[in-house]
């Protein structure tokens, strides 16, 4: 009985895969030709599994008269003529808002290939659907380590205290036994050595904490607020390699890096409505995040209905109220374009390894010392010619001459006024 069940399961799996293989192998050649055709002709507007510019193509043979490939061919070759006497395709145009582009060069063989490819994909999706368990990634454990170390040091401290008590008790007993008379021992909290030690520790520790707290006033290192949507920079900028400037393009030409408006999100998410292929997402409390549900939140802001993509009106979108993380006091002036365009500073230099962060937190302390330090150490890109390098610093004639004559080997930001008060405070 114990053996029976697995064998039964195996047999059924074997049978299923054999069945799937046989279906695929019969139409393998056709499907391969169909795949190339599909990518070049259909893929821009159709997806097999979901509605996009046009209807989902999976299971198209069950709809209308498409099981007859001649009908399908007539429609593909000349949609306008076919639609004139056909109510179903007129309905399609009403639903999707536009008529399909005609492909007069498609032949009946092509249609057979295309349908074979689409059916093979549908079969592959169904059989592949069950085995989708990705190994769960364990959430970060560094916090637990800190807690364990804390508890261990506490226990060690208590043990040390007890040992000291035991030691003094033993000493007293040995003194009693040998008849040595000593004054009654003071309890440790009246012992001057202990008091002095404790007060020194108290002042050092307390002073450190007070100084640290005072320095931290107005600084937000590690600030990581909860955002209205769990937007993962790791997925977008890391895994999918979207350029930072795609969304934050203003960093190139303006003071602010700018938060993208909803229509920028929808440039891609009009088509990407589910989160399936990426790694599992966890928030900072270790709870798993459903990416698809987060995209649905975006659709709510955008007023977008994924079942009816062509009815979307971008002007009805509502702004998402993201929480600003990197705050500078009002008495500091900072300009992104000066650093990114003229200075060629990478985003990651100040914002940390953004492409590895699910939820963004402030990495740099954004203090004045931190700014000044970088201005002291960073070289300015002075080596320009007609095509590369920037011409922003071309007016610093003396420095250019000094570099040429070998008096200087590099120009730091501080040399061109990077430490002057009024550059940032005015």
């Amino acid at each position, binding site marked *: 009985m114990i053996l029976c069940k697995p064998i039964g399961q195996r047999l059924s799996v074997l049978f299923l895969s054999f069945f799937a293989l046989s279906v695929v192998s019969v139409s393998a050649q056709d499907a391969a030709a169909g795949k190339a055709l599909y990518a070049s002709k259909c893929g821009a*507007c159709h997806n097999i599994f979901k509605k996009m510019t046009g209807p989902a193509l999976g299971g198209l043979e069950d709809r209308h008269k498409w099981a007859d490939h001649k009908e399908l061919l007539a429609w593909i070759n000349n949609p306008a003529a076919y639609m004139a006497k056909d109510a179903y395709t007129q309905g399609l145009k009403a639903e999707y808002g536009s008529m399909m582009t005609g492909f007069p060069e498609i032949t009946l063989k092509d249609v057979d290939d295309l349908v074979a490819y689409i059916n093979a994909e549908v079969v592959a999706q169904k059989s592949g659907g069950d085995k989708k368990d990705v190994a769960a990634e364990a959430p970060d454990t560094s916090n637990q380590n800190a807690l364990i170390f804390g508890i261990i040091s506490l226990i060690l401290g208590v043990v040390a205290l007890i040992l000291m008590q035991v030691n003094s008790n033993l000493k007293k007993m040995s003194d009693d036994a040998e008849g040595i008379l000593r004054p009654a021992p003071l309890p440790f909290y009246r012992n001057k050595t202990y008091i002095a030690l404790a007060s020194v520790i108290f002042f050092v520790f307390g002073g450190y904490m007070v100084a640290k707290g005072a320095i931290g006033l107005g600084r937000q290192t590690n600030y990581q607020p909860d955002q209205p949507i769990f937007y993962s920079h790791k997925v977008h900028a890391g895994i999918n390699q979207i350029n930072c400037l795609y969304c934050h393009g203003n960093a190139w030409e303006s003071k602010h890096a700018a938060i993208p408006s909803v229509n920028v999100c929808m440039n891609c998410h009009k088509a990407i409505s589910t989160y399936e292929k990426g790694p599992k997402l966890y928030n900072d409390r270790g709870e798993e995040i459903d990416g698809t549900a987060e995209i649905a939140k975006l659709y709510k802001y955008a007023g977008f209905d994924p079942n009816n993509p062509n009815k979307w009106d971008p002007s009805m979108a509502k702004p998402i109220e993201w929480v600003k993380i990197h705050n500078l006091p009002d008495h500091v002036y900072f300009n992104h374009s000066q650093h990114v365009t003229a200075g060629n500073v990478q985003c990651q230099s100040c914002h940390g390894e953004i492409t590895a962060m699910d939820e963004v*937190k402030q990495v740099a302390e954004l203090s004045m010392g931190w700014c000044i330090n970088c201005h002291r150490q960073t070289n300015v890109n002075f080596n320009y010619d007609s095509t590369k390098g920037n011409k922003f610093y071309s007016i610093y004639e003396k420095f250019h001459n000094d570099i040429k004559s070998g008096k200087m080997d590099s120009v730091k930001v501080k040399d061109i006024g990077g430490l002057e008060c009024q550059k940032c405070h005015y």
Partner: protein
Amino acid sequence: MKKVLYITGSLSLVIALVSCGGPRKDEGRAYMPDMAYSRAYETYSSTEALDKANIHYVARPVEGTIARGEMPAYTLKNDSAGYAQSAFVKNPLDSADLTAEQLTEAARLYQINCGICHGAKLDGNGPLYTSGAYPAAPRNLIGDPLMLAMTEGTMFHSVTYGKNLMGSYASQLSTKQRWQIIAFIKAEQAKKGAPAAAAPAAADSTAKK
């Protein structure tokens, strides 16, 4: 013995407070609040208070105005008639705006805004599509006969208003930047041996005006 308990208790409390890690959720306090928070309305600050005072701030330029250094607005409407007319629109940038340096800038803008789908080589194989994240095949800008035949005006119209699944890029790229990118795509098409008809047309438009 009671005091020992007291001291160990308070010590453990301090340690517990210090070791209480986890992400920081509060902004903290400002040292000099009067100089830390702007009294003026900053970018992205809420305009709720203005609304209450009956001042309706729309955050958009006044209709019909042009920003300094920007080109006159594109006038064709986002409808099928506008799309048809756009075929006859010529690239208004003259050769001074399309130097090798400007085309390098256009290539940079292309890689940031278009390359993610249409591919770094303009062949429709952008990383977002090849990784399987994006479900629709982006147009092959240098291989698809449809794209080779498409005039620069129609391309500009599509980039400005969006076409099929592609959204509008008018909010991300200025009019001039969009024309530069179109010029870059047409130049790349010509390099790849586009039909003879398309190349002179592109050359015309840059020579004129």
